[in-house]
C-alpha cells in the first residue's frame, strides 16, 4: 500500500477525494501511529482516494491556543491555511477531535474553509453507504464495550451518535458509563494539559475516568481521540487492569473487522 501526499497528487494534476489530516499525535506518538495506520488501511481497502500533507502538515496550534498563546496559534494557522488553500483542499478527515474542532470551527474565520469530518463520522458514512463491509461475527461481536465521549467531539461539536452507530455495526454489547454523552467526563488531556503535569489534587482525572470505565465491566474502552487513548491506557495500567481491559480507537476496531 502506498500513501500519497497532496504534493504527489498535485504533480499529476489530480485531486484526491479527501485529505487525511493526521495530526501530531497520529504522526509521532507510537500508540497513535497505530490508529493512523489502521484508518489509512481502511481507506485504502475500501478504495477511498486520499492524500496526506506529509512533511507539509504542521500542528494546528490547538495546544498553544488553549494554553493562552494566541500568537503561536495564529502563526500555525496562517501557515496551514496557506498550504491547504494552495492545494485547493475541499474536504478533510481527521482522527483527532482537537484537530477536527479547530479546522472545522476556528480556521474559517481565518480564511480556511473546508468540509471537515471526524474519522468516526466518516467511518459511519462508509458503513452506511456499504463501502466498508464488516465481517459476520467479527472479533467484537457480543463483547462488552464502553465508549468514552471525547470533549471536543461530544460537547464541543455535538457528535454523540456516529461513533456509537459504528460500534453497533460491530455488534458489540455497548455499556454506557454513568457520565456519558453531554455529561461525559474529560480524560484530563484537553486544554494543553497533555503537555504539563496535573495541578495538585486528590487523584488524576484519567484515573477517575478509567476507574469509571472499568467499573462498567467492559473489556474494551472505545475511544475516538489519540489523547484520550493515551490517558485512559495509563489509567487502566494504574488500576493494574491492562491484561483484561483494552483501550482501542474505533478505527482500530473497524480495521480488525473488515470483511475480506
Amino acid at each position, binding site marked *: 500500500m502506498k500513501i500519497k501526499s497532496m504534493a504527489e497528487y498535485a504533480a499529476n494534476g489530480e485531486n484526491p477525494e479527501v485529505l487525511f489530516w493526521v495530526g501530531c499525535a497520529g504522526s509521532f506518538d507510537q500508540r497513535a501511529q497505530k490508529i493512523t495506520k489502521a484508518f489509512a488501511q481502511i481507506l485504502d481497502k475500501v478504495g477511498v482516494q486520499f492524500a496526506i500533507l506529509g512533511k507539509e502538515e504542521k500542528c494546528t496550534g490547538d495546544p498553544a491556543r488553549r494554553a493562552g498563546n494566541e500568537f503561536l496559534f495564529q502563526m500555525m494557522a496562517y501557515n496551514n491555511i496557506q498550504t491547504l488553500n494552495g492545494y485547493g483542499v475541499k474536504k478533510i478527515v481527521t482522527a483527532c477531535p482537537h484537530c477536527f474542532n479547530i479546522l472545522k470551527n476556528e480556521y474559517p474565520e481565518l480564511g480556511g474553509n473546508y468540509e471537515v469530518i471526524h474519522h468516526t463520522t466518516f467511518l459511519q458514512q462508509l458503513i452506511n453507504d456499504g463501502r466498508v463491509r464488516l465481517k459476520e461475527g467479527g472479533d467484537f461481536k457480543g463483547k462488552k464495550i464502553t465508549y468514552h465521549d471525547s470533549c471536543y467531539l461530544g460537547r464541543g461539536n455535538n457528535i454523540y451518535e456516529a461513533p456509537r452507530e459504528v460500534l453497533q455495526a460491530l455488534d458489540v454489547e455497548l455499556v454506557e458509563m454513568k457520565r456519558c454523552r453531554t*455529561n461525559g467526563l474529560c480524560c484530563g488531556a484537553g486544554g494543553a494539559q497533555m503537555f504539563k503535569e*496535573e495541578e495538585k489534587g486528590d487523584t488524576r482525572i484519567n484515573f477517575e475516568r478509567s476507574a469509571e470505565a472499568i467499573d462498567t465491566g467492559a473489556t474494551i474502552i472505545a475511544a475516538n481521540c489519540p489523547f484520550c487513548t493515551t490517558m485512559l491506557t495509563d489509567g487502566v495500567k494504574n488500576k493494574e487492569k491492562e491484561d483484561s481491559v483494552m483501550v482501542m480507537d474505533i478505527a482500530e476496531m473497524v480495521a480488525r473487522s473488515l470483511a475480506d
Partner: protein
Amino acid sequence: MHLIQQLLFILFAGAAIYFFAKKVGEIRRNIKLGRDEDRTDNSSARWRNVLLQAFGQKKMFKKPTPAILHFFVYAGFIIINIEILEIFLDGILGKHRMFVPMLGGLYSFLIGFFEILGALVLISCLIFLVRRNILHVKRLSQHELDGWPKTDANLILITEVVLMSLFLTMNTADQVLQSRGVEHYVVTEPFWITSNFTSMLSGMSTGSLIALERSCWWLHIVGVFLFLNYLPYSKHLHIVLAFPNAYYTRLDPQGEMSNMKEIQNEVLYMMQPELAPAADPNQPQQHRFGAKDVMDLSWKNLMDAYSCTECGRCTASCPANITGKKLSPRKIMMDTRDRLEEVGKNVDKNKSFVDDGKSLVHDYITVEELRACTTCQACVEACPVGIEPLSIINQLRRYLVMEESNSPQEWNLMFGNVENNMAPWKFSPDERDRWAEEISA
C-alpha cells in the same frame, strides 16, 4: 384611616421602586464596563434559547428532583405575581380584593390556583433548606460558599417561606371574616386550600382577625418590596437576568474558542507586509492581550457573573474539581462578580476607575486554578442559564501567557517545539510521515 394606609402604601411602593431602579442602573453601568461584543445575530435562535432554557428550564431537568422543586418555585413566582398586581392596586386605591366583581367565579379559581402554587413553593423551599442545611448536598456545601453565600441562600429560602405563609394566613383570616359578613370583606367562593383551615382561626374575635388579616397583607407586600431590593445584592438576581442571559448566550459550537482579530492581523501583516495599513495616529489604543481584570472581559462575561445563582452544577461536573484541584467554575463566576462590585464602588467614588493595585487574576483567581482547566466545556454545558465560565478562564490564561509570560516550564517547551518542530513534541518534522513509509514498506 384608609387614606393614611393608602399614602403609606404609595410612599413605600415608590421608595421600593426608586431604590431598585437605582441599583439596577448601577449593575447596568458595571456590566457596560466590559469590552464590546456583538451578540445580536440570529435572533430566532436566541429567542428559542429564552423559551427553552429560561422559560422551559430545559437544562435544569438533567437533575430531575431539584428541577421539579425549582419549577414549582419558579412557576409560583411568575404566576403569583398576578395576585401581587391586585394587592398593589388595592394598596394604591384603598380597595380590598378589587378584582372580585370583575372576575366573578373565575376569581376564586385563580386564588385557589395561586394557593396551590403558594403551598408548593412553601414545601419546595423547606425541602431546599433541608438539602442545604441537613443533607448537605455536596455542590451546595462546598468551600467557596462559606460565609455570605450560604447565608444569602438561606435568607432567600426563608423569605419565600415567610412570604408564602403570610399569603396563606391572610387568605384564611379573610374567609373567616367573609363568613361573618364583616364590611369590606367581599364574599367569594371558598379558596381551595385555605378554606380547609378556617376552623383554626374561628375562635378569634372579629377585631383580632381584622388585625391579623391586615398585618399579613402589609407584611407580605412590604416583604415583597424589601425582597425586590435585596435581589440586586444577592445571587437571587438570576430570576431577572436568567432571561436576557439566555438570549445573549453564545450560539457557536461549544468547542470553538473566540478569535483575537488583533493578533490575527499582526501575524498577517508580519507574513504579508504589503497588506499592513499605513500607521494611523488616530487608531484607538491597543487593549492588553487577554484579560487581567473585569474591564478586560466582555460585557457578556460580566452579565454572566450577575446571572449566576451559585447552584454549582458547573463545579459538580468539572473534572478538575471532581479530582480535588483548586479550580471551581462557580468560584470563577463569584470572583468575577465580587471584583466587578468592587470596581463599581471604585467608579462611584472616583467618577472613573482609579487603580487600586488589585486585579481579577492573582488577587481573586489564582494561577493554579486557571492552570487546572482542561477546557472540556462541562461547566458551560451544565449551566442552566447559559453562563460560560470557560470563556473567562481562557481570557485570563491568554493574559498570563502573553502579557506576563507566566506559563509552566513544560508549556514553554511545548511552545518551543510547536514553533520549531511544528509539533508539540521534540520530533523532527522530517519524521512526520515516517508511519506512511513504514506502512508502504
